[in-house]
Structure formats: structure tokens, C-alpha cells
């Protein structure tokens, strides 16, 4: 009997085309299993699926009382807090559309999004967000209510449209107790929801132009999430830490959709400062991070190991070497000599195991990285120590997945074969185009750009240039429009080179130029942590980032890094022409607040080229120095002007002989 019940449940499961329906399903099937945890007041508060269902129903009721109807938009802003996630589900329960926005977005950026989306209610985390939304709404006026999670500092606020979520929840509970139909009404709303409705609107930060609201349908989200949950065998026994920005598709996919589809528990950190510690406590089994996180982590690992004693350093180097030789093969279940296996096992005990433990990676079964290409060595490092790190390639427009690595067939040069139920084609211009279950409906209020992006036969243009290799795995070379040619006809894929540069711990960011020029050149951002540490060990004192960046010793070190990249490039037949001949180190860090990076920390190449035009000229006119003056935004929001004279330096390129040998 229990069996048939389970079968019925499984059959019914296939019909759940929205997240609120999934929530109800879990509340029935695994009522007492943990659904959400939050480190709060020092311990992990845990809510079971049935508790979550109750809260979401109450919230939905509260929203309804505030006048939310099917199709309305609700903005969500703040850190990863359970109540913010629940607000999304509550909105979906009523057929309204949650619009998560970046918590650190500046007011102007945010205004544009909120105006475009026409949100009726904003659910925000704390006083900081409340202040921001109140300010924006003075000009915008469309936000009728602002709901907040943390009441600290808000007791003085007299605004009538400012509401405490807890108060609303209490009121809703009272309503439910008084009037059973109130609850039933919400349940009816959930049942009335269909998969064709818009489930969420995610604003892409786009490398060019204004943000676009990507509308994703409920069934699309559910199907995409279900396909990949099956692909990686995710189950309700998995655990995960939600620490990525709510507004990013990665977070919505991994933490929100997957959790609902697979029924696993999502944990929210206590505060951004404790996220690393919280990660270690939770020990997730499923993990997702952009390459920059893995990179920062590896840099810190290397720095900390440099302070270790000689024996430990030797041991670390030795076993990392062993891992380099065998780790990947063992992870891919290839045949490995017994002795090497034993050697690796010893390394696991002494180095890899403990290392994964301190990083909080011990229990990870599947880890993904995406967002941009990851350095090969960086990727190999994590895989070699036994972390099943895989790449996926995706977009907001696809609800993340387009391709992803299969266990046992991981190749860092590629992003894997098409994900389940995804069709991919390469256009004549070399652009990757796809069709997938999670494909977006359209851009909100932007038919023109929707038409630009979606081909008449229903494929989505990714804007990326790529090729399939012999094994049927997709290899992304660069942005389709960024791939250029040098004057001598050699191929220049800037992103490809930048990623190689960034693998060096001293280099935090690099911008490569050269399209339509004689040779390739680079602007470098040093990594303050790594270089600062290096400076300390070499007794180099410096007063500022700018001073450190201009130090001759730093130039020397960066030059060596670039030259090693040049050697690597020389070995790639297609890229050998694009070796970097000249470079400079920027006097300031590229910053999203100055528009130089996107909110997801990608370089806006054309903007940078424009802003630093005198420097770019300097890179090509052979001068040894170049002057630059730029406007900057300081941390406290003030703006100012910074001017500097930067040194431009040359780097050795590998002679054609090597190139020929490689070819």
C-alpha cells in the first residue's frame, strides 16, 4: 500500500508545474525533513517542509491583503535570507512575479529596473535596503508597500507603507485561525497556477547597455531544474549553502529551483563575514561558485601555505604534485597503477582531505562553476584533490544550463556536451545557439531585443563563439563580437588570454587589446592580497594600492607571469600570434561602481578601452609612460578625480622557432 502511495505521489509529481505546487508536495511527502536552515543567533535554525508551507501560505495571504494579484511584480532585495526566498514562493503562489534585484545595486541602476518592472511591493532585508527603496520610491511612486525582514534601526520610521514581515505573518496566522477559508483560498490560488505563467523575472546585468528583464515560465524553470537534478542525481539528502546574490540566475537555479525540485535543504549564512565559516559548518554536498570564488580560494590557500613550516610546505608541494599526476585520472575512474593509488591515498589523508575539510568541501558530491571560463590549472587543481568540479555553460535566458560536464568526462577546455533536452547549433558566424526547456519567454517590455536574441526558428543566440570538439563537447572561445584579428591576420581571443593571465595569483584582472592592431597588449590589475603578501615578505613598504602597483619589483613579477603565458600561447597553434608584447599595471582596481565591471564582476572591455584611451594609445605608440585621469566613486559614495602617470613595459614573446616546433 505504501508502495502504491509512493507511485501515486511520483505520478502526481510529474504534473507539478510550479514551485508552490512542489512546496505542497514536499510538505506532504517529507513534512518533517529540513527544508531551510539559517544561521541565526549562533545556531542553525531549521524549518521543515511543513513549516515552510505554512509560512509561505501566510505570506501569500498577507500579499493578497496588500492587493497583490495574478501578474503583479514584487521586488526582492537583500542577502540570502529565508524570508526573502519564501516571499518569492508566496508571490508565485498568487501567480505574481518575484523580481529579485542585486542588493548592492546603486540607486540609479535599481530605479531603472524597478521602473521597468513596475513593482507593486518590495520585500527587503534591512534598514539599508529600506532607505534605498524609500529614496527611489520618492521619484518612482509605484511601490505601494515596503516589507522588511530585520527591524533593527527601523523603529523610528513613521512611513505607513513600511511593514514588518513578522507582523504580517502574525496577522495572517490569526486570519487563518479565524477563517479556515482564508487558507483554502490560497491553496486554490496555487492550484490555479499553471506552468505557462511567468515564474520569475531576472534582470541580466549584460556587458552592454541597460539591464533586460528575462521572463522565465514556471514550467520552463521546473523542467530545466528537474532535468539537471536527475543528471546529477540530486535528492532530498543533499545540502546546500545559499550565498550567491539572489538576483543572479545561478542562485535562483541552484538554491531555489533545485531545492524545490529535489527537495533538499538549503542553508542561509549568518552574515557575509561568516559565510566562509558557515560553509565549513554546513559542509554542503552540492556547490556552485563562479570561477572568481575558486580563484580567490586558491590564492588564499597558497598564501597561507607559504607561511607554513618547511616540512609542511614540502609535503604540500609533494602531494599536490602527486595529485596533479593522478588525481584527475582517479576522479575519472581511469586505471591507475596500484602504487600511485596508494601514494594518492596517503595524500588524501595528509593533504587533500584536510584541505577540503578546512575549505568546507569535504562532503561535496558535485560542484559547478560557471559565469565565465575558468583557468585550466585552477580547474585541474580542484579536480586533482578530489573535488568533483565541473563546468557548465549557460545563460539567464536558458535558466542557466546549456551544456554541462558529465561525471567522468570532464575536460577543462570545454564546457561539456549539451545538457539533457537541450539542442545546440553553431551558426555560420560561429555563434552558439540553443533551444532548451528552460528557454526564456521574452524580455519584459522589450520586443525589439527579444527579436534580436531569438531566431525565427526558436533558437536563442548566445553571443558566444564556440566549436564542438571530436567528443561532442562544446568549447567556448570568446564573445562572438570580441574575437578579433590582429593586423597580421592572427586570431585574437581576448578572454581566452585574460583567463590564462588571471591564473597567476598576482593578477586579479586583465584586459587584453589587439583587435585590428599589430600585436596584443594588456592592462593588468594586481591582486592586493597576493602582492601585498609578497611585498611584506620582501620588506617592500607601500602606502597605497597605487604605490604598490607602480613598484618596479611588481612590474618585474608581472612581466614574468606574462612571459609564461606567452610560452603557453606559443604552444597553441591558433593563438600563437596573440602573445602579449606590452603591458601596464593599472593604478586602481577595476570597479563595478565605476562601471568598469558588471555587477557579476565581468570586465566591460569597450568601456574600459574608452575610459583609458590614453593608456591604450600608450601601449601601441611605444612610449615608456602614459598619463591618465579618471573619475572614481569612493566607498562612501563620494566621487573624485584620480590622475596618475603609469609605466608601460615590454614582455618577451616566444620566438617563431618554438611556435613551429609546437605546430
Amino acid at each position, binding site marked *: 500500500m505504501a508502495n502504491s502511495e509512493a507511485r501515486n505521489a511520483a505520478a502526481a509529481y510529474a504534473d507539478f508545474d510550479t514551485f508552490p505546487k512542489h512546496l505542497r508536495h514536499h510538505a506532504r511527502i517529507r513534512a518533517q525533513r529540513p527544508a531551510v536552515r539559517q544561521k541565526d543567533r549562533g*545556531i542553525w535554525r531549521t524549518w521543515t517542509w511543513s513549516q515552510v508551507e505554512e509560512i509561505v501560505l501566510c505570506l501569500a495571504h498577507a500579499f493578497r491583503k496588500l492587493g497583490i494579484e495574478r501578474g503583479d511584480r514584487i521586488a526582492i532585495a537583500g542577502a540570502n535570507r529565508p524570508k526573502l526566498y519564501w516571499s518569492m514562493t508566496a508571490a508565485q503562489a498568487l501567480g505574481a512575479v518575484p523580481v529579485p534585484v542585486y542588493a548592492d545595486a546603486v540607486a540609479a541602476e535599481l530605479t531603472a529596473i524597478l521602473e521597468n518592472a513596475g513593482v507593486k511591493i518590495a520585500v527587503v532585508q534591512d534598514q539599508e535596503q529600506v532607505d534605498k527603496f524609500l529614496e527611489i520610491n520618492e521619484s518612482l511612486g509605484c511601490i505601494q508597500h515596503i516589507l522588511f525582514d530585520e527591524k533593527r534601526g527601523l523603529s523610528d520610521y513613521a512611513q505607513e507603507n513600511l511593514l514588518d514581515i513578522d507582523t504580517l505573518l502574525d496577522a495572517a496566522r490569526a486570519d487563518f485561525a479565524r477563517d479556515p477559508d482564508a487558507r483554502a483560498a490560497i491553496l486554490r490560488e496555487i492550484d490555479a497556477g499553471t506552468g505557462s505563467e511567468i515564474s520569475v523575472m531576472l534582470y541580466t546585468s549584460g556587458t552592454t547597455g541597460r539591464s533586460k528583464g528575462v521572463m522565465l515560465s514556471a514550467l520552463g524553470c521546473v523542467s530545466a531544474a528537474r532535468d539537471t537534478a536527475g543528471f546529477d542525481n540530486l535528492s532530498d539528502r543533499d545540502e546546500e549553502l545559499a550565498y550567491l546574490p539572489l538576483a543572479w540566475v545561478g542562485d535562483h537555479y541552484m538554491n531555489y529551483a533545485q531545492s524545490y525540485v529535489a527537495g533538499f535543504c538549503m542553508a542561509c549564512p549568518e552574515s557575509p563575514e561568516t559565510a566562509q565559516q558557515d560553509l*565549513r559548518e*554546513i*559542509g554542503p554536498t552540492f556547490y556552485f561558485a563562479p570561477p572568481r570564488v575558486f580563484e580567490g580560494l586558491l590564492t588564499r*590557500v597558497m598564501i*597561507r601555505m607559504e607561511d*607554513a613550516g618547511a616540512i609542511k610546505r614540502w*609535503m604540500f608541494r609533494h602531494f599536490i604534485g602527486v595529485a596533479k599526476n593522478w588525481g584527475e585520472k582517479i576522479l575519472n575512474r581511469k586505471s591507475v597503477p596500484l602504487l600511485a593509488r596508494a601514494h594518492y591515498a596517503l595524500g588524501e589523508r595528509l593533504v587533500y582531505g*584536510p584541505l577540503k*575539510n578546512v575549505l568546507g568541501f569535504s562532503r561535496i558530491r558535485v560542484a559547478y562553476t560557471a559565469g565565465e571560463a575558468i583557468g585550466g590549472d585552477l580547474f585541474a587543481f580542484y579536480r586533482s584533490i578530489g573535488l568533483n568540479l565541473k563546468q557548465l555553460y549557460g545563460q539567464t535566458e536558458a535558466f542557466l544550463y546549456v551544456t554541462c560536464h558529465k561525471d567522468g568526462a570532464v575536460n577543462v577546455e570545454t564546457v561539456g556536451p549539451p545538457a539533457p533536452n537541450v539542442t545546440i547549433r553553431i551558426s555560420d558566424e560561429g555563434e552558439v545557439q540553443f533551444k532548451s526547456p528552460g528557454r526564456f519567454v521574452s524580455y519584459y517590455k522589450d520586443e525589439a531585443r527579444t527579436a534580436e536574441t531569438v531566431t525565427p526558428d526558436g533558437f536563442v543566440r548566445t553571443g558566444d563563439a564556440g566549436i564542438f570538439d571530436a567528443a561532442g563537447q562544446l568549447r567556448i572561445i570568446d564573445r562572438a563580437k570580441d574575437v578579433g584579428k590582429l593586423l597580421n591576420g592572427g586570431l585574437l581571443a581576448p578572454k581566452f588570454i585574460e583567463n590564462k593571465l588571471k591564473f597567476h595569483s598576482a593578477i586579479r584582472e586583465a584586459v587584453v587589446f589587439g583587435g585590428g592592431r599589430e600585436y596584443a597588449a594588456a592592462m593588468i590589475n594586481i591582486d592586493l592580497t597576493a602582492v601585498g603578501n609578497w611585498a611584506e615578505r620582501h620588506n617592500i613598504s607601500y602606502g597605497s594600492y597605487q604605490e604598490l602597483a607602480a613598484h618596479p619589483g611588481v612590474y618585474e613579477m608581472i612581466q614574468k607571469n606574462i612571459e609564461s603565458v606567452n610560452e603557453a600561447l606559443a604552444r597553441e597553434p591558433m593563438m600563437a600570434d596573440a602573445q602579449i608584447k606590452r603591458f601596464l599595471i593599472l593604478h586602481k582596481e577595476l570597479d563595478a561602481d565605476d562601471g568598469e565591471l558588471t555587477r557579476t564582476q565581468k570586465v566591460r572591455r569597450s568601456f574600459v578601452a574608452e575610459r583609458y584611451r590614453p593608456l591604450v594609445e600608450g601601449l601601441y605608440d611605444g612610449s615608456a609612460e602614459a598619463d591618465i585621469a579618471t573619475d572614481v566613486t569612493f566607498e562612501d559614495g563620494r566621487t573624485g578625480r584620480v590622475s596618475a602617470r603609469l609605466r608601460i613595459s615590454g614582455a618577451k614573446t616566444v620566438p617563431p622557432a618554438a611556435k613551429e616546433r609546437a605546430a
Partner: protein
Amino acid sequence: MFYREAGQFKTSYAADMAIFPIRQDRIAMLLLLAFAFAGVPLLAAFHVPPFNSEYLLRAIILPFLILSLAAIGVNVLIGYCGQVSLGSGAFMAIGAYSAYKFNTGIPGLWLPPLPTLASILLGGLMASIAGIVFGIPSLRIKGLYLSVATLAAQFFFDWLFLRVKWFTNYAPSGSVSAPELSFFGLTVASPVEKYLLALTFVCVFALGAKNLARGNLGRQWMAIRDMDIAAELIGIRPLAAKLSAFAVSSFIIGVAGALWAFVYLGSWEPLAFNIDRSLQLLFMVIIGGLGTILGSFLGAAFILLLPIALSQLPAAVGLKISTATITHLEFIIFGSLICFLLIKEPLGFARLWQIGKEKLRLWPFPY
């Protein structure tokens, strides 16, 4: 290196405040306890070396356990509450002689001979009362002045038990012998039985002391220790805090004294609890680590084993040295090691242990 803490998270305050919040620590502790309570007796029963040796149990492990218990008591006062006492030996003596009197009956007070357990605990209680009395000066006297003042207790009780014959039931030699040890009808006589008895006492008291130390009372003690004025200004009463530390400390020391006399020595004279004993206990807690229960054990092991090791050493390496010279050498090496440890790690073995554990937890990182 052995720690795998990823995934060990606490969902309640009770779990977060556990003595051993880390699973690996809990497992290690359980293994240790299982070995101590079941493994050792079994190994001894089957004559497995080295546990077949009566010497090991009777002359090394037994005194180690009992002195660890006393050191825990001393640590409560000095390590947690910051009140330095040089009179611990006296409180051991009070525990021993009171337990003896209760155990043999006090006709003057119409008290029949009491069972062993009750006698031992009452011995602790008497020590506790004496502790409170001699702790009263701590309200006015601080630091080294106090430590010297506590010597008054040491010398007074030394004298009392030597000169007042009532305490020794008028034994002509001044030496007294403990009657047979019996607990709820079970006789404790063999080394293994005595070992288990002492082990039980130590475990129960160590747990109790740890519980007190991490609760409200313990925090008050530490507050007084770290900054008594600030403690007073947040409402902690120095009188209550200090005297409670004296009472708890002396109780534990008194019980340890009774065990020392009844279980370890069997028959004893006041000399067993003189100033040297006080200094020995002081060394244990300082070398072991002030303000840690673990330190009490480490310190006791070190201070107890060092002289034994030193006296065995010349013979072991085949040196023929006169016994007088050996004694003097012991003095020198002991003193030098003390100084060396104080210089190298003033916070004691427990601190070293903690550093080592931290290293293992963060392995392969150095910090």
C-alpha cells in the same frame, strides 16, 4: 589532520554548548573512557603487559588519578578564580582525617562508624568548610599576600593533626590506617578495584567541575580572576564568588585527600600532606595549564612521572651513581625543567595541547 568538521553544525544551543562539540573529540573521549573502564581491567585480568604489572596500577596510575583530582580542585581556585593558595596539602589532610574519623565513628558526637563513601564525601565537606573559613581573608588580601596567608592553613593543620591525638584516635605512633574499603557491600582491595574506584571518582568530579566552570558560577569566578573591579561593578559579589570557589575547590581537594589516604596510602602520617604536597599540586596546575580541566591531568602526569623517570634513568642507561647524587640530580633536573617549561610555555601543557589541536583542525594550514 584527523578532523573532518565540514557538515558538523549545531541546530540547538544545547548542542552548541556541549563539552565536546566536535564529533571526532567525542569519539576519542568515548574510546578513552572505554579503554580506561573496560580495557585496562580486562588487560590486567588476562595478564597482558604492561597491565599485568601491579606496580603500574598501584604506584603510577592510582596516584596519578588521585592527584589529578586534587589538581582539579586546586585549579578551580587558582586557575578559574585566580586566588593563589599554598595550603592545598592541608585541605587534603582535612579530607583524609575527617573521613577517617567519620569512618571509625565519633562517640563524642554519638556518630556510629559511617560507610566509606559517606565518610569520604563528609571528609570533602569538612575540607570545604575549612576552605570557606580560610578563604575569608581573600576578600581583603590579594595576590601574593593571599598566597602566603594561605600557608597559615597549611601550618596550622599540619600541627593540629600531629599534636591533637583525638584525630588519630590516640594512635601511639601518630600513624593511622584506613579500615577496609567497602562500597554498597562491595569490598575494594585489589589494585584493579582501587584503580576503578579512583577512576570513577575522577571522572565524576572532572565532569562536575567542568560543568561548574562553564556555567554561571564559573563565569563569575573567571570574571573575578580577570578583573575583579569590573566584575563587582556588573553586580558579581566578590564574597560569594570567591568563597564558592574556595568551597568547591576545597571539597574536591578534601575528597582527593581522603582517597589519597584510604585508597593509595592505606596508612599515613601528617607528613603525607605537608607543604611539599601543596607545592607539588601548585606545580601541577601551573605546568598543566591554569583554568583548564585537561591541564590538571597533564600537569599531574608530568609532575608525578618526571621524578620516577629521572630515578629510573641512570640505571636504564647503565650509569652507576650514588643514590645521594641521584637525588641531587633529580632536584636539579626537575627545577630546570620547571623553569624551562615556564619560559617556553607559561600557559602550560594544556595550551600546547590546544595549539596542537588547533593545528590539526586547520591542517594543512599553519594558522
